[in-house]
């Protein structure tokens, strides 16, 4: 993967997450999606759909089990993207 990709993904995730999160938090790569952002399952599904549509990828369900932080998610997306 290229750094540009990662940056682009990170940017999109931060934008989307801050609009989905119910509280006013600054989102960084270390932000824990589960404990720091109160995102319910429906918002999460929306987020995954947006990511898949934006980057034209498919995120396998088994991979999400190891995602906790924004960095984990960005990493996963860029890995899937570069594997294509």
């Amino acid at each position: 993967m290229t750094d540009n990709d990662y940056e682009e993904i990170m940017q999109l995730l931060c934008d989307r997450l801050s609009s989905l999160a119910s509280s006013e938090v600054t989102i960084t790569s270390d932000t824990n999606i589960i404990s720091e952002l109160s995102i319910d399952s429906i918002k999460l599904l929306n987020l995954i759909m947006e990511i898949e549509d934006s980057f034209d990828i498919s995120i396998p369900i088994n991979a999400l089990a190891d995602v906790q932080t924004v960095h984990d998610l960005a990493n996963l997306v860029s890995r899937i993207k570069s594997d294509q």
Partner: protein
Amino acid sequence: MSSTIAKLNAPLTQAFDFQPSSELELTPTPTRNTLAQQLAEFDTLTNALEYAAQGITGYNFYNAKGHLHSVLPYKSLRNNARSLAQRLAGLNLVRGSRVAIIADTSPEFIELFFACRYAGLVPFAMPVPVNLGSHGIYVQQLRGMLESSQASIALANLDYINFLEEAAEKSINLQWVGTPAQLKKLPVKEVMLQPNTPDEVAYLQFTSGSTRMPRGVVITERALMCNLQGIVRNGLEIKPDDRSASWLPFYHDMGLVGLVLAPMVTQISVDYLATRDFAIRPLQWLRLISRNRCTVAFSQPFGLKLCTMRVRESDLKDLDLSCWRAAGIGAEMIRPETLRNFAEKFSSAGFNDNAFLPCYGLAESTLAVTFSKVGKGFHSIQVDSKVLIDKRMATSLRAEGRKYNEFVNCGRPLPGHTVKIVDENGQRLGENMVGSVLVQGASIMTGYYNNPEETQKALKPDNWLDTGDIGFLYEGDLYITGRRTDVIIVNGRNIRAQDIEELAEQQPEIRSREASAFGVNDADGTTTIVLVIECRLTSAAERLSLIKRLQQLVYMAFGVNCVVELVPPHTLPRTSSGKLSRFAARQGYIQRMNLGEQLSAVAESGDR
């Protein structure tokens, strides 16, 4: 991928014109069969498959974009399952040994399931991980099922094999763990596959039992066939031109029995979408129904809600749902608004609300207990709230302006089954009286596998199954009003209160019997999980950290947010035996929060 994915050149009586030219190499199995339809007139699953294999119908699997990726006609299923059974035979297991299979929506799962039956083994489906960050808890969950079932073999597709191997470490019963591809490399043992008998166990079905000690429902071939006959003949009145579409997970009873086994024993074709793909893009399910002219499709109310919420107006014009004659709804309490909203949204796409088919059932009764009348839509009654609270009695609303509760009619028991309503002492109640719902009949489970204690709790004398649900009978029809407080249903998922409390009690700051979990409903029916903790911490930072940690744990385990309330020691109400009363804890919380939602509180009774 595997050889199971038949690139069909098979003769087709009907061509489907919707296939884009790029995927002409795959064609779904047709709706019209070349074989006379038999409605579950079989004594075992393998006999049913031997018959279905003589036709040209079968299972079809679609990807997230709605493209067909695998076709598994019953004929190929039969051959592949028999060949896998010969390899399983080479492992020399005792007849009736359990085989654990992680059940993603794939042809491999169905082949393995039937391979087990041909080999005289007892398969059971394990879930796929669905929640963000759930790795650790998911592995624990698998381990619980492997131990509870004393499984001899465990299988998972490549995507999930790592989780399974992790869960299988230190297991004493497991003799072999691998992928379907690895199983296919095992040597074939040339044995005669022995026929099954109706009294043999057909499969285990794990319910939403606790993580540590999950409960495996034992279902015999006889119970299964009895339930399937009721479903396909009386519940659905299946005809030769029926076709199903489903996104329901194969590891749930409604997905497995209702949308894998019921279509096979009636030799009709099914179109599958993976649960995850449905959850992200619910429109794909409706598109499948519309394109393939499917007639029978089931969902939990939550699935219908997702469709209503997430489908855009612009999508509607491409849909024609007029073919959908049986829109079965079950697996959780049905709210009339969910159905009305769905019908309102999709009527312009040809959806006929007469298709709504509310039903009631549970894994402990194989799948179905009651069905309303197919083709007649859903019916509900409005009962006087005050009488419901004061007298625990459902009386229809007489005067205008009084507060009411509305309940959906779930219909009548399948032939050979009886439903009764009893009070706390097990005494039978009359019509209209609210109490525990008990069921008797030939579809009832043998028990929970290797768990006499839980079996005894659920199966009362004369084999009456205590369903754990609360409801009443009105003119012979069943209405469900709630669940007892030990199960919380959020977004269609059953979560055991005890599981959440156990998670909390694993924290060093929390002692046992200091956590109480329950659900509270807001006005539009949304359920929120509340976890009340008796807490000695005084530092604000420590308290905040505990709350965050608990919320994170609950999210990782169950994929839902929860409210955590810290209260001083001795706040939580206890029963005479010193057990926490969730019912009273919930009442206390509601008072503190001033929620004043007596109504949903009263529809449920106390703890078990």
